[in-house]
């Protein structure tokens, strides 16, 4: 299969997952779209190597690193792809009007980054503890501890409303 066809299939398979990961961390759909684009641009540039390993884990790790950089440096990352950032207006409307999603987003803000990552990867993206461990670079046992802590904290925040 041609490289661009392989990449295209992978993009269509994973781009929403990466977007969701970035969105639920940042609550900013524009930033999420921007960084999603960056993640896949980096994948495409190094596609021959990237595709040989566990692609999903690689994509999430790059996304997470970009996000951490964004938080630490608090500056705009150079985006190598030209053009404006566009977000699906229907999606924007949905996010603004959906109260439950708003509640979840606000509750997630109360969590530190590592707990947030576990919530998004383990519960929202339905990954196994092993896959989450691989992405976060921690042990499976650690993932289970973090997931429990994350749920307790979220329960406290959501019930406190």
């Amino acid at each position: 299969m041609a490289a661009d066809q392989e990449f295209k299939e992978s993009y269509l398979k994973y781009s929403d997952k990466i977007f969701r990961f970035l969105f639920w961390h940042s609550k900013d759909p524009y930033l999420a779209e921007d960084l999603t684009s960056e993640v896949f641009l980096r994948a495409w540039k190094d596609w021959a190597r990237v595709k040989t390993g566990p692609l999903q884990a690689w994509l999430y790790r790059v996304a997470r690193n970009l996000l951490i950089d964004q938080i630490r440096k608090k500056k705009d990352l150079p985006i190598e792809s030209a053009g404006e950032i566009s977000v699906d207006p229907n999606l924007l409307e949905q996010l603004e009007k959906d109260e439950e999603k708003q509640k979840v987003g606000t509750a997630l803000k109360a969590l530190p980054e590592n707990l947030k990552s576990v919530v998004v990867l383990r519960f929202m993206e339905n990954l196994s503890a092993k896959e989450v461990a691989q992405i976060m670079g921690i042990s499976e046992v650690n993932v289970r501890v973090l997931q429990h802590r994350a749920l307790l904290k979220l329960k406290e925040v959501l019930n406190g409303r």
Partner: protein
Amino acid sequence: MEDKELLKELQEVANEKEAEELFNLAQKLQKEGQIERSWALKYAQLEKILGEKQKRPWHWPAFFGPALAFVFLVVFSASSAIFAQSSLPGEPLYPIKRASEKVITIINPNFAKEIPVRRSQEVKDLLEKKKGKEVKETLKEFRSESKKSGTSDQNKVNKSLNNLEEAKKSSDEENRSEIEKVIEEVRSQNSGSSTQEVKGEEDQTDHSGQGGKTEDGNNKGHD
């Protein structure tokens, strides 16, 4: 992640009640976490990354459903109206036929003169199909429509009279006498207006010695 796997993991670190509560919360997060971007956006991003136009698989556009429903409605309405034209009183599509006549008359007022002909045709068809029940009512309609449209269009009047004469042949005694009454009414209506026309002509000319014109002179040979 299997639901059972997560529940088991939670039960290892919490009591049953708490594990269930946390499990339910995890389910809620899974549901609320779902966000999908549009295909258009994804393909636009892909194009930028790959630097070339991507062939997009065809998707039904969002407006397709309503547009198809509208087209179907128009086609269905038009088809119903077309099929209804051959319907007879008492049949399901007959109201559509009558409604379409009203619409056509609005667009083309001359069509009103066609309506008595249609009623007379219906009388004929009803009797040929041995559906005598509806004949009386249809004759009533014919009378009413004839009065409305008048007798100015002789061709139409003649067509109606022909239909009624044909109808007489297939009718029972009761309907036959009713039809004959209507035929007489139409003829006298027609001759009345012919007399008025003749009188009008006589008033206009100084000499009336042209001869040959009788009261029903215009109608001779049409029986």
